[in-house]
């Protein structure tokens, strides 16, 4: 069982790295980029029986800082 956790800065939180990537793309000639947000993808290999609620707890306690970040869990 695998879980994929995507952690992103919440809307409205300034993302200096995303802004730098956007500016670099613009200077390379890619004119159509109106916004860039950079986040993290964390893949977890889970033992059978691990619940989605436990993964949510992992996100709340460690994987995301919920003051500034949101997270999404996909279990496959």
């Amino acid at each position, binding site marked *: 069982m695998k879980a994929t956790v995507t952690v992103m800065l919440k809307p409205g*939180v*300034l993302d*200096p*790295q995303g802004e*730098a990537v956007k500016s670099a793309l613009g200077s390379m000639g890619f004119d159509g980029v109106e916004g860039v947000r950079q986040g993290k993808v964390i893949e977890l290999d889970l033992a059978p029986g691990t619940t989605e609620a436990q993964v949510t707890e992992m996100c709340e*306690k*460690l*994987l995301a*800082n919920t*003051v*500034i970040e949101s997270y999404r869990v996909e279990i496959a």
Partner: protein
Amino acid sequence: MRAAVLVFPGSNCDRDLAVAFQRAGFDTHMVWHKDTELPERLDVVGVPGGFSYGDYLRCGAIAAQSPIMRAVAGFAARGGHVLGICNGFQVLCETRLLPGVLMRNAGLKFTCKMQALTVETTDSPFTSAYKPGQEIVIPVAHHDGNYQIDADGLARLQGEDRIAFAYEGNPNGSVAHIAGVLSENRRVLGLMPHPERVVDEAHGGTDGAPLFASLAEALVSA
């Protein structure tokens, strides 16, 4: 007076912090991150600068979950004094002993220089030996010192006089130029600049020394 200085894998200001405490008259104990208890009869815990756990995931996030930080949270809850410097400030924010977060510097660069600060409050056990509004110069050395907090949180910090130090100019994009903040009970201080690096004339400055002297004074008279 007894001070503990925590040591995480990747801490690199722990010995400097211990020396600064000793010069202010503290008996200092180094405490390893896997320990589950702090020394007895302790007056203050120092959480030092460095790159705990390689800054993996987020600066301070993994250190915040270490066994010793559970003991530090209990110590703070019982009214203990805690001083977090640079990475230590990041750890205290991740532990939620202090509000807000420290994000990547707005200019994206590691900044390492002498930095002018203003002492924003002298009403704390860490700042009482400074003069109100005093300008001091303390080195900064960080990549993630951009202090952010939501509007309500900022209003609360300002209303409760909990901003300890502010930058003159803004080296990292921090909201309201914040360089250091106090907890609600004023006994936990986190700051990005390094006062332990300016406690001796040979360091090129002594503007950090009053911070440790304030603490010694507060703890002796307590």
